[in-house]
């Protein structure tokens, strides 16, 4: 079959080649595709079902929002109800008759003092939050300090320094540590570590804030380490390459380029760790001694907000003053950790936006 190719035989230039399937199109007796006549473009029933499914999924999705909202509402509803019976000032301190000893006169005189005491079960119940805040901070701050330092070192090791084989073993190990129930860590602190610490420090209280802080660190270190590692891994590789290209050693690259670039993520890790430390319940309940004192001595027995709720909620009557006071403590705790989480999230969001060069 000779075909006339008119004009410029540019066909050759483009290299129009060879024959394709020159055989006649396969003659099978297949029916042609369905005629496009009947047009039911709009399938009502199916569209309705799809919409229903989407709404169902949306409802499930909103569950998380609903729950956090309910927590917020109920906590504050029951907590603020405390103000029906308790003056706000009482959450700071209350008037109390304290006997003071006058050495010159060798007498006890009763003076009215503004006492910062948490003692809901007494003739004149006192609801000062300050001892509880003191306790929570006295445990959470040292714990966060220890955990941030160690967690940072571990995070750097896992992200930048460890060989792949080591990393594959170490990372799950750290995660497994995070998976140990806190009640067991509290148990070990209570049974073993407290005595150990006491024999070293000769502290007056066997169960004290320091023991609690140690236990809490065990739980927080994996959190900080893991978040730090994520933050470090998020630093783009080109930055490292540039540093190496300029002749820096590995540690110099890590300390001068990578870590500074990840500083917001690391800060966020620390903040989240602190929030977590404040919220820890079982370890402090079992290992800190539960004496509601105001003190700066880390070897003193303390009581945290969380332990207070856990220790007293079982014994209150619903609707009583103490019941509402406990909810108020819970609401305060929730607000504080919420603030810290929010701050950490904002920092992380800002870091992500900045690194999206």
């Amino acid at each position: 079959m000779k075909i006339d190719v008119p004009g410029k035989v540019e066909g050759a230039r483009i290299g129009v080649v060879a024959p394709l399937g020159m055989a006649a199109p396969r003659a099978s007796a297949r029916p042609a595709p369905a005629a496009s006549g009947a047009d039911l473009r709009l399938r009502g029933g199916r569209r309705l079902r799809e919409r229903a499914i989407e709404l169902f999924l949306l409802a499930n999705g909103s569950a998380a929002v609903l729950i956090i909202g309910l927590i917020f509402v109920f906590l504050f509803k029951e907590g603020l109800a405390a103000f029906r019976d308790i003056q706000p000032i009482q959450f700071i301190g209350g008037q109390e008759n304290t006997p003071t000893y006058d050495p010159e006169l060798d007498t006890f005189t009763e003076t009215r003092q503004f006492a910062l005491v948490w003692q809901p079960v007494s003739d004149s119940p006192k609801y000062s939050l300050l001892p509880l805040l003191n306790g929570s901070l006295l445990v959470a701050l040292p714990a966060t300090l220890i955990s941030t330092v160690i967690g940072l070192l571990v995070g750097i090791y896992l992200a930048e320094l460890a060989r792949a084989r080591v990393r594959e073993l170490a990372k799950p190990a750290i995660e497994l540590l995070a998976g140990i129930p806190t009640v067991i860590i509290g148990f070990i602190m209570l049974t073993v570590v407290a005595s150990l610490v006491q024999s070293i420090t000769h502290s007056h209280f066997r169960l004290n804030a320091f023991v609690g802080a140690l236990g809490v660190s065990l739980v927080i270190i994996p959190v900080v380490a893991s978040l730090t590692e994520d933050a470090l891994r998020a630093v783009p590789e080109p930055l490292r390459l540039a540093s190496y290209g300029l002749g820096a050693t590995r540690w110099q690259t890590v300390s001068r380029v990578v870590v500074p670039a990840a500083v917001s993520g690391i800060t966020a890790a620390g903040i989240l760790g602190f929030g977590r430390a404040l919220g820890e319940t079982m370890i402090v309940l079992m290992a800190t001694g539960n004496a509601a004192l105001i003190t700066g001595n880390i070897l003193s027995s303390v009581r945290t907000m969380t332990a207070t709720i856990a220790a007293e909620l079982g014994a209150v009557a619903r609707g009583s003053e103490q019941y509402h006071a406990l909810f108020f403590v819970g609401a305060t705790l929730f607000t504080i950790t919420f603030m810290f989480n929010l701050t950490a999230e904002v920092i992380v969001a800002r870091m992500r936006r900045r690194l999206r060069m």
Partner: protein
Amino acid sequence: MSGQTITEQPGPPTPVASQSKIVVSGLDAFYGNVQVLHGISMDILEHQVTALIGPSGCGKSTFLRCLNRMNDLIPGARVSGNVLLSGLDIYARGVDAVEVRKRVGMVFQKSNPFPKSIFDNVAYGLRLAGVRNRSALEERVEESLKDAALWDEVKDRLNQSALDLSGGQQQRVCIARALAVKPEVVLMDEPASALDPGATTKIEELIHDLRSHYTIVIVTHNMQQAARVADFTAYFYLGKLVEMGPTRQIFTNPENKHTEDYITGRFG
């Protein structure tokens, strides 16, 4: 089949008064505020292969996706204008994009078979349509695999994973999968660009054979491929349709200087 010289083209038989399967008029497409298609108007004839060519970023893939409303899935995408499939505007109010896609199938650039068996891949669309009868499914699957020129190679291992096949075979599974639902139009977005020459040839032969039962629109950056495979060619540039006509004419005697420049490789 041998002995044909380079100057001869195995052109298609003269079209028998083909009807327009798809009529596009004044199609504009936007991603957010950026306009990517400007006033495209063209007729795509039934039982013909129409190729869309042009340099990267000229809008040909976007245009292709407008024909089966896959563009709807991109957030911020918007179109205006008409696309008539067999006389019915697929962008009219109340039209269900899902139904459109049952009639206008698509084969993607990088083959994407599901991690299921070959049989389940090809039968996927049929099961969606409600076909449950095992023997009906088997019959249609065999038919589609034959159409895709893959039956002989896989007929003994239909239950094996489609991912175990070579690249070219996977792409033919995807073609079979698209054909199984008997669409009226098959859109192909650079179907052979990720394949080696041997597999590419098979795909091109396939396209040639499918013409008799389907209308095919193929995007390709490979002009030789367009010349080999297509009855009609449309040249796109920067979101505009520069020229469209019978392939032979476009490649040998284009009306537009710009087209000629692209064809002869002066740019792109």
